[in-house]
C-alpha cells in the first residue's frame, strides 16, 4: 500500500500541482485514510514509511497557496463558500492525521517531531470552512489526548516532549472560532465547542475562557451559564459532560475575577443566583453521570459507542470536582445527589486487576525494528505508554480522588461519609508511586503494568489533595487516617522527583503536623524537620516564582510543628532553619523583591522591607527581671484562637493555590496587591479618614476599578510580591508559634541569645512601620486623625501577635519591649487599622503589657503604662471603647480597666 502511495505521491513534486493532480492527490489520501481507519498496525507501518512528513508537506504547501484568501479567520464566514479541490486535499490529509493520532501515545513523538500541532494551528487560523475546521480541531484534540496518555507513562521522560498549542496565537485563533461559531450549523458548533473545551482541559488552561469572559459583566456570564445548563440537559453522555465542564470553567473563571466585589451587593446577588442555578440544575446532572460511570451503565439511552462511555467514566468525577471545588454550597448539592456514594466505588474499582488486552495478531511477522534508531524521528513511533486498561484505571482513580478532595473540602459530614464508604485505604494505596525502574518499553513487555503496581503523577497529586482535605477533620486525623498509616507514604512523597508532587505532599503534611495530630511524632521520627527545612531553604534560590510555593508550604508545616512542641524540637528546628536565614526571610532580603517595590510610577510604593521610619534609636532601658509568671490566663484563649486561625488559614491557602484569588485579598485593608498610583486614590474611597472602621463605601465606577485591579494583579511582579508576602507571613507565624506556650520565656531568651534583641525588634518595627501617609488626609506623623497606608495586614497581625507573646513572657521581656520607642511609634497607627483583626490583636498585646504579674511587678507595670500613655497608645485603646466591633470593644474595656488599676 505504501508503495503504491509513494508512486502516486512522490515526495519531491508537491509544488504547483494542477487540478488533475490535486484530484489524484485527494484520491490517494482518501485511499490512505480508508486503509488505516480501524487498523492500528497499518498506522504504524505508514509512519515508518514516512507518512508524517508527507502530510506536513501537503498541509503547509496548500496553506501557503491559499492563505491569502482565507486569512480572515475571525471574520464572518463568506456566504458563498466554494469547496475547492485544495480544500478536499487538506481535509483528507487532516483526516489521516486524526486517524494516526487515534493510534495512541506511540504516534505522538513522530507527530510532534514534525511540528504537527503548529501546522494544524496554522491551518485552523486560515480556514473558515466548517468541515475542515472541525476536522482540524479533532486532529488537534486527538494529538493532545494521546499526548496526555504519554505524559503519565512512568517510564518515559515525558517532559522532553510537550505540546504547546496554547500559545498566544493559539488562544487568539481558538477564541476567534468561538466567537464566529454562531454562523455555523448547530451541531458543528456543539462539536467545536466540545473539542475546544477538551483541548483546554488537557492543558488545564482557562486562558481561552478568560479571554471570552473578560469584559463580560455578570449578566452576560449568567446568561452564558444558563445556556450551558440548557445545553448540558439537552445532550447525553460525553457531550453533556463537556457542557458541564465548560460551565465549571466559566463559573470558576468568573469567580476568580470577583475577588473584590464584597461591597457590590447586586453583583453578589447575581453571583449567588448563578450558584443556586448550578446547584439545582448542574450539579445533580454531574452526579448522575458519575453514578452512571460507577454503575457501569451506558450513559445514553441506546448507546453503542464504548468509546464515549469510556470517556465518561474517566472524566465524570473530574468534572464534578471542577464544578464543586471552592464552593461549599455546590459541594452540599453534590453530596445530596449521592456523589460520595457513587464516587467511592469508582475509586475502589480502579484497583481491581484487569486482564491485559491481548495483542493484535499480524500476518506479517515483523522482526523487530532493528533499524528504527537510525530513521529520522518523524518516522519512529515511540513507546505505547501504559497499557490502555491501566491508563483507564489511573484516570478513573485520579478523577475519583479529585472528586473526594473537592467534596471533603469544607464539610466534616462529607469527610465522615467518605470514611464510612471505606476508601481511606484506597487513598493510602494511591500515594504509592511507580517504582523508579519501571519501564513500559516494548522490550520489557514481559511485565505488564497493572493498576496495583503504582500510581501516575496525576494520581499522586490527586491523592495528596484528598489526604489534605480529609486531614482537616480533627477526629479523622485521630482515627481512620492514623489507622490507615497515611503519614508514611506522604513523607516519602516529599522526596519525589516531581516538584509538583513535592509541593502537594508538603501541603498534605501541613495538617498532619498539627498539635493534635497523632502522626506528628511519627513524622518527626522519620526526619520531617530536616526535609521541610531543606525544602524551605532550597527553593527560591533560582528566583523562579513557582518555587516560593514550596517555601510557603514548608514554612507553614514547620509553623504547625512549632505549636505546643517540646522545647528540644523547637530549638532543633530553629537550628536547622538557621536564625539568620529566618530573619532574612522575614525582612524579605531578596533583592528582586525590592526592585519592583521601588519601581517608579508616582505615589507611594509598597515596601516589604521599608526603611525604619522612626529613624533614631533609643537607648535600651534596663530590663528589670522581677521573677513573675507568664500570663497564662490571657495566653490561653489567644493560643486557641491562633490554632483556629491557622486551621482556617490552611483552607484558605488551599483555595488560593487553586487559583481562587479572593482569599489573599483583604477587602478592608486592600494593601498587598496595590501599587503606587492606584493605592493613593483607592484609599480615599476605601477608608474615609474620619471613621476607622469604614464599611460604607461610596459608589464608584466599579467595573473600571475591577479591570484596573485585574491589570495590576496579573503583572508578574505583583504575583511575585504576593508570594513574598506569603513567605514572610509564614516565617513570622513560625516565630509566633515558637513563642507560644509554656516555654514562651525560655524560647524568647533563646531567640535573644541567637539573634540579639536589637535585630529582633528592628525586624518587628520594620514590619509595623506604615508604608506612608495618605496624601489626601495627612502630611506628617501618624496621628489618629490621619489615615496611614499600611503594609499587608496578614504580616501586621502576625507581628502584633508576636508582640503579645513577648509581652506574655517574663516581666523583663515586657520591659524590653516597652523600651522599643521606634517600635511603639510604628505600632500606634494600627489601632485604627480598618481590619478588626488587627485592632483586636493590638489591644490584646497592650493588655498583656499592662498585666501585673505580682506585687513586685506593680512598679514596673505602672511605668510601662506611663510609657504607653506617653506614646499615645493608651489614648488609642480608649478610643477603641467606641469601636463598632464587639470583640474590639470588650478587649479595649479590659485594657482600659488595667490602665486604671495601675
Amino acid at each position, binding site marked *: 500500500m505504501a508503495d503504491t502511495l509513494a508512486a502516486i505521491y512522490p515526495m519531491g513534486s508537491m509544488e504547483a500541482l494542477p487540478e488533475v493532480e490535486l484530484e489524484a492527490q485527494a484520491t490517494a489520501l*482518501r485511499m490512505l485514510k*480508508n486503509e488505516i481507519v*480501524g487498523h492500528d498496525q497499518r498506522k504504524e507501518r505508514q509512519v515508518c514509511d514516512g507518512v508524517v512528513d508527507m502530510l506536513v508537506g501537503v498541509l503547509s504547501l496548500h496553506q501557503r497557496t491559499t492563505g491569502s484568501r482565507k486569512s480572515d479567520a475571525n471574520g464572518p464566514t463568506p456566504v458563498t463558500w466554494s469547496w475547492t479541490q485544495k480544500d478536499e486535499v487538506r481535509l483528507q490529509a487532516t483526516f489521516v492525521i486524526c486517524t494516526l493520532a487515534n493510534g495512541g501515545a506511540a504516534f505522538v513523538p513522530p507527530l510532534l517531531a514534525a511540528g504537527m500541532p503548529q501546522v494544524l494551528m496554522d491551518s485552523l487560523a486560515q480556514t473558515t470552512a466548517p468541515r475542515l475546521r472541525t476536522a482540524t480541531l479533532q486532529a488537534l484534540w486527538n494529538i493532545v489526548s494521546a499526548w496526555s496518555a504519554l505524559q503519565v507513562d512512568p517510564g518515559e521522560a515525558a517532559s522532553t516532549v510537550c505540546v504547546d498549542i496554547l500559545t498566544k496565537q493559539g488562544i487568539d485563533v481558538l477564541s476567534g472560532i468561538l466567537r464566529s461559531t454562531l454562523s455555523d450549523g448547530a451541531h458543528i458548533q456543539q462539536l467545536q465547542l466540545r473539542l475546544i473545551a477538551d483541548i483546554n482541559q488537557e492543558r488545564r488552561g482557562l486562558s481561552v475562557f478568560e479571554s471570552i469572559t473578560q469584559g463580560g459583566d455578570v449578566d452576560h456570564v449568567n446568561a452564558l451559564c444558563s445556556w450551558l445548563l440548557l445545553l448540558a440537559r439537552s445532550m447525553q453522555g460525553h457531550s453533556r459532560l463537556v457542557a458541564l465542564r465548560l460551565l465549571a470553567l466559566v463559573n470558576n473563571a468568573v469567580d476568580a475575577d470577583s475577588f473584590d466585589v464584597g461591597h457590590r451587593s447586586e453583583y453578589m446577588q447575581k453571583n449567588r443566583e448563578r450558584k443556586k442555578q448550578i446547584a439545582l440544575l448542574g450539579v*445533580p446532572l454531574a*452526579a448522575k453521570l458519575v453514578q452512571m460511570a460507577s454503575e457501569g451503565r451506558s450513559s445514553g439511552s*441506546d448507546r453503542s*459507542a*464504548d468509546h464515549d462511555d469510556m470517556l465518561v467514566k474517566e472524566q465524570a468525577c473530574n468534572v464534578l470536582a471542577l464544578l464543586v471545588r471552592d464552593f461549599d454550597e455546590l459541594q452540599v448539592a453534590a453530596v445530596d445527589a449521592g456523589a460520595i456514594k457513587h464516587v467511592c466505588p469508582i475509586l475502589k474499582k480502579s484497583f481491581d486487576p484487569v486482564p491485559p488486552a491481548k495483542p493484535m495478531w499480524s500476518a506479517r511477522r515483523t522482526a523487530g525494528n532493528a533499524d528504527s534508531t537510525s530513521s529520522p524521528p518523524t518516522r519512529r513511533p515511540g513507546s505505547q505508554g501504559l497499557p490502555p486498561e491501566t491508563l483507564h484505571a489511573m484516570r478513573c482513580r485520579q478523577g475519583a480522588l479529585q472528586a473526594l478532595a473537592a467534596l471533603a473540602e469544607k464539610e466534616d459530614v462529607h469527610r465522615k461519609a467518605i470514611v464510612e464508604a471505606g476508601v481511606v485505604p484506597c487513598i493510602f494505596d494511591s500515594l504509592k508511586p511507580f517504582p523508579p525502574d519501571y519501564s513500559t518499553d516494548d522490550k520489557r513487555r514481559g511485565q505488564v503494568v497493572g493498576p496495583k503496581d503504582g500510581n501516575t503523577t496525576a494520581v499522586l497529586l490527586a491523592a495528596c489533595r484528598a489526604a489534605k482535605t480529609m486531614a482537616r477533620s480533627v477526629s479523622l486525623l485521630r482515627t481512620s487516617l492514623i489507622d490507615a498509616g497515611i503519614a508514611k507514604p506522604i513523607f516519602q512523597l516529599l522526596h519525589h522527583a516531581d516538584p509538583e508532587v513535592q509541593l502537594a505532599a508538603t501541603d498534605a503534611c501541613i495538617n498532619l503536623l498539627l498539635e493534635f495530630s497523632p502522626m506528628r511524632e511519627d513524622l518527626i521520627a522519620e526526619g520531617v524537620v530536616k526535609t521541610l527545612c531543606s525544602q524551605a531553604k532550597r527553593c527560591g534560590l533560582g528566583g523562579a516564582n513557582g518555587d516560593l510555593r514550596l517555601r510557603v508550604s514548608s514554612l507553614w508545616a514547620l509553623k504547625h510543628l512549632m505549636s505546643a512542641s517540646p522545647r528540644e524540637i523547637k530549638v532543633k528546628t530553629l537550628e536547622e532553619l538557621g536564625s539568620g536565614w529566618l530573619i532574612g526571610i522575614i525582612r524579605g532580603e531578596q533583592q528582586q523583591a525590592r526592585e519592583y517595590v521601588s519601581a517608579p510610577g508616582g505615589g507611594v510604593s509598597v515596601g516589604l522591607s521599608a526603611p525604619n521610619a522612626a529613624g533614631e534609636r533609643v537607648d535600651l532601658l534596663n530590663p528589670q527581671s522581677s521573677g513573675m509568671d507568664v500570663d497564662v490566663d490571657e495566653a490561653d484563649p489567644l493560643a486557641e484562637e491562633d490554632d483556629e486561625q491557622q486551621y482556617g488559614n490552611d483552607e484558605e491557602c488551599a483555595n488560593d493555590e487553586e487559583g481562587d484569588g479572593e482569599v489573599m485579598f483583604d477587602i478592608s485593608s486592600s494593601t498587598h496587591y496595590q501599587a503606587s498610583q492606584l493605592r493613593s486614590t483607592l484609599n480615599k474611597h476605601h477608608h474615609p479618614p474620619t471613621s476607622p472602621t469604614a464599611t460604607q463605601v461610596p459608589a464608584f465606577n466599579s467595573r473600571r476599578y475591577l479591570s484596573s485591579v485585574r491589570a495590576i494583579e496579573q503583572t508578574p511582579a505583583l504575583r511575585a510580591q504576593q508570594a513574598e508576602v506569603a513567605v514572610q507571613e509564614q516565617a513570622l507565624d513560625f516565630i509566633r508559634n515558637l513563642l507560644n506556650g509554656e516555654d514562651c520565656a525560655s524560647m524568647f531568651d533563646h531567640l535573644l541569645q541567637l539573634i540579639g534583641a536589637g535585630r529582633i525588634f528592628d525586624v518587628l518595627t520594620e514590619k509595623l512601620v506604615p508604608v506612608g501617609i495618605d496624601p489626601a488626609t495627612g502630611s506628617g506623623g501618624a496621628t489618629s486623625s490621619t489615615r496611614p497606608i499600611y503594609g499587608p495586614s496578614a504580616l501586621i497581625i502576625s507581628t502584633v501577635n508576636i508582640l503579645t507573646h513577648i509581652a506574655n513572657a517574663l516581666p523583663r521581656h515586657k520591659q524590653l519591649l516597652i523600651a522599643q520607642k521606634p517600635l511603639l511609634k510604628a505600632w500606634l497607627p494600627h489601632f485604627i487599622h480598618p481590619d478588626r483583626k488587627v485592632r483586636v490583636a493590638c489591644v490584646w498585646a497592650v493588655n498583656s503589657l499592662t498585666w501585673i504579674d505580682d506585687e513586685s511587678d506593680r512598679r514596673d507595670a505602672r511605668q510601662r503604662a506611663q510609657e504607653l500613655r506617653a506614646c499615645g497608645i493608651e489614648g488609642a485603646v480608649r478610643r477603641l471603647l467606641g469601636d463598632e466591633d464587639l470583640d474590639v470593644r470588650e478587649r479595649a474595656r479590659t485594657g482600659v480597666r488595667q490602665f486604671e488599676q495601675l
Partner: protein
Amino acid sequence: MGLRIVVLPHWKAGRKRCVVLKLPRKTTWQNDSANTSVSNKSDINWVIMDYLVSEGYPGAAEKFAQETNLPGPVDNESIRERVRVRNAIHGGRLDEAIELINEIDPEILDNNHLLHFHLLQLQLIEIIRTILAKPGSNPAATDFLPAIKFATEQLSPRAPTDPKYQQALERTMALMIFPPEKMTPEFKELLDEELRRKVAVDVNRAILESRGERSEAKIRQLIKARAWAEQEAKAAKVGLPAYVPLGLDAADEVGGVDGDAMVS
C-alpha cells in the same frame, strides 16, 4: 364516567417517581388534546418528521414538510449521506459503505472497533456468498482464497483481542466449510440479509451520535415510554384495561400492536 390513568415518569430530587394523571376514561386520545401533550396535531406531525429524518427518508420528509407546512429538514445532505450508507449496506456493497462512513467522519469506525468489525464481517460474508453462489456443484478449495486473504488482512488482527471477535470470525469462516443446505440455523443467520439491516441500524445510530444528534427517533422513545408506563401502571394495580389501544389505526381493534413488543 370512569377515569383513565396515565402514568408519566417524573424526576424529583434524584429519585424516580410516578405522576399519575387521572383522565376521563370514556374519551379517546384524540379528543383529549387539552390534557395529553402529544395529541396536538402539529406535535404529532413533528414526531413523524423526526422519524423520517432520523431514519433516513429524505424524499418523504420533504413531501411531508410540504403537506404539513412544517419547516423541511435542516440538513438534507446529511440525511442523504446516511441513506447512501444504508443502501450500500443493504445492497451488500460493504467496501463502499465503509468508505462513505470514513468520508463522513473517520472517527466513527476508528473508535468503534466493534462496529468496524461487524462491517468487515459482513463484507467477508458477501465475499463468501458470491463464491457459494457461483454456478457449479461445489466450489473448489482454491475458490475461497480471496475470502481467506480478506479475513487474514482485515479481520484476523483484532480477533485475538476479544472472544467475541474470535467467535464471530470463526463462525463466519465456517460458512466456507458447510454447504448452504446443511447449515444449522445459527450459520444460516449469517447469510440472512436481516443481518445487513441490523448492522445498518447500528451504523445509522453511530453516524447520528457522531454528529451529536439524538440517535433514535423520538417516536421510538415515546412508544417505549408508553409501554413502560403501562407496565408500571399494571404493577401498581391501578385497574388498567388489559389492552390500551394506541388509537392510531384500525389495527387497534385486533390488539397487541407493538406496545409490549418494544419493551426489551
